[in-house]
């Protein structure tokens, strides 16, 4: 048995079975509650990742400018690093929390697959993962029927496929930058916006619907987190579904307090995320203090 199984999949498998027994043997409710718990435990990492991603997103126009201006790779790299320092952005900040969460997501996914026991062979495999607790061992098999679905079989009604596809689309829409000023990038984003939901909807029709319940639950939790925690002030649901504005600069936003420093650089606009703004302010004030000295 490998470490991944020992540390993640086996404990999660036993917890999932325990949860199912708590909820009267309902595997469907256990999947949803379990997804909530795992998303809750990884919430600090999710927040860090989302904030870091937003900060990275906010400096993309300036990154573009640097790439256009400096042809020398070394100089370009120096300027990019300088920009990162200036904005207080760590490029690894986006990836690291995600990398930490990845094994947990995969383990969660695998756990559901294991506990489903959709074939007699997988049921025998499950027996090797259970702890010697009678409460867990005697709970199996779990009730595979949840709402209209047999969780061990693909759903033939298309309802869960539609739910998975729609929730993937909404989440994708919420996490895709709406106006990057780069047509190629925008078209790629648009392609992903539609391709991902369609692919997930198609997977849903081919895998046991227990996994589809997990996908739908994790998408809905993700959407809720995005909306309530990461939403820019004043953003409404309606704006999520609006078509992205044209890539070309349409109009200038309302002027924000800004000024040019004595080096000719431009101040960061007030449209930046609050976290980035406050970081920038701290740096500016530090700069002034250094200047005074």
């Amino acid at each position, binding site marked *: 048995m490998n470490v991944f199984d020992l540390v993640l999949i086996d404990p999660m498998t036993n917890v999932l079975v325990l949860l199912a027994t708590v909820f009267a043997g309902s595997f469907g409710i256990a999947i949803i509650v379990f997804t909530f718990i795992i998303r809750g435990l990884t919430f600090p990492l999710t927040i860090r990742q989302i904030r870091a*991603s*937003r900060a990275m*997103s906010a400096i993309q126009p*300036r990154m*573009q*400018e*640097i790439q256009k201006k400096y042809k020398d790779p070394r100089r370009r790299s120096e300027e990019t690093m*300088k*920009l990162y320092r*200036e904005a207080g952005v760590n490029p690894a900040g986006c*990836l690291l929390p*995600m990398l930490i969460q*990845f094994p947990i997501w*995969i383990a969660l*996914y695998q756990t559901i*697959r294991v506990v489903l026991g959709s*074939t007699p*062979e*997988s049921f*025998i495999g499950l*027996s*090797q993962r259970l702890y*010697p607790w009678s409460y867990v*061992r005697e709970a*199996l*098999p779990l009730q595979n029927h949840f709402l209209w679905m047999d969780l061990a079989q693909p759903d033939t009604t298309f309802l869960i496929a539609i739910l998975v596809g729609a929730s993937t689309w909404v989440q994708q*829409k*919420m*996490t*895709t*930058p709406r106006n*990057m*000023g*780069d047509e190629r*990038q925008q078209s790629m984003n648009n392609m992903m916006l539609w391709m*991902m939901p369609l692919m997930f909807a198609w*997977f849903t029709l081919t895998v*046991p619907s227990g*996994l589809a319940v997990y996908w739908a639950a994790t998408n809905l939790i993700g959407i809720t987190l995005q909306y309530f925690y*990461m939403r820019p*002030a*004043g*953003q409404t649901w309606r704006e999520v579904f609006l078509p992205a504005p044209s890539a070309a*600069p349409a*109009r200038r*936003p309302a002027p924000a307090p*800004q000024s*040019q*420093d*004595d*080096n*000719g650089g*431009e101040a*960061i606009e007030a*449209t930046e995320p609050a976290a980035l703004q406050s970081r*920038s302010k701290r*740096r*500016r004030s530090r*700069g002034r203090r*250094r200047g005074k000295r």
Partner: protein
Amino acid sequence: METTTNVSRETPRLPRQLPVGPARWTTGARHGAPLVGLSLLALLLFAACGQIASPEGWADPVATDSTILVSLERGKLSAIDMDTDQETWRFPSKDDKDRDLKAIYGTPVTADGRVYVGGFNGTFYSLDLATGTVIWEQKTGGAIIGGPALADGTVYVGSSDNKLYAFDAGTGALRWPAFKTGGAVWSRPVVEDGTVYVTSMDKRLYALDSATGESRWPQPFEAQGAMPSTPALDGNTLYVGALDNRLYAVDASSGKQVWSFEAGNWVWCEPLVANGVVYVGGLDHKVYALDAATGEQRWPQPFSAKGPVRARPALAAGVLIVADNAGNVYGLDPNTGEERWPSITLDAGVLANPLVVDNDVFLSTRGGDLLRVDAEAGSSTLVAAAP
């Protein structure tokens, strides 16, 4: 109020035009979002396509006068001539595109020139033994995991739709309305003296009148765990394993418990009862020899296999043959549990019960091979390879 940025003179003039409006849902980095999305998708694909289980089947081989019936290819039943080791027919045939059994778990039964077999697709078939052509077929509401039992012109088979069916062996008509249990029926029924004994995943063992389907016991026997295993009937006692790690001895007349024995994991193995001893394997990688009357252990210690034991042990030439899910075959002394010869390692694990023909034991592996094990010599030969 004046705010300034700490940007050096070399710093390029920053764009005046940041994205229109507030940073809108810009939680994905510009280049990162599609890449991360694709990576996640690829990983999920890997996890989904590479790991989602599909049914394999573990139908036991069955011998007639000159033929062995075995499932070498997933969802197909092959008839192998014992003299020539050649396949005489396969069901469904290559030309039969309409039938897809998905997998065969239940041991086929033969009688009067016919073969009875159920598929994971939920359909039960009666075939011509000589040609493999379908005589009749009946659809059930769930996958058929347990094999059929045949008695007095009636074939009994359980289904994952929680029901036990009694079909007329000649026509396929239902003899009595399907008996409904509280869980899937994954075991083979046992029929003796007008009574059908069948276990269910609802943790119960039922005794039914074979002619009417009515309950014979006041209450079904109830274990602490689900019962996917087939009971063994010896005299007036039924021996049956359960997913509460126990093997139960149950009085066949009353449905009362005689004794129970606790193993270290689920007992899914159909027990073998011989000479007053119950031999049973556990998913705890152990093989136990228990006194049939008391449930006391007969060996100084249980035999430790290298993998879970689901296949029923077999006695041939005075040797207890045990095969595990890790692909090892052991020849044990039935009195002491000591190994008679070094274990044989196969290419794949064994979940199907073995077939004993004289001194030979035929094993069907998960890889689809059929092997003949000489119980005396402890050697194996390949009879038929997976296609």
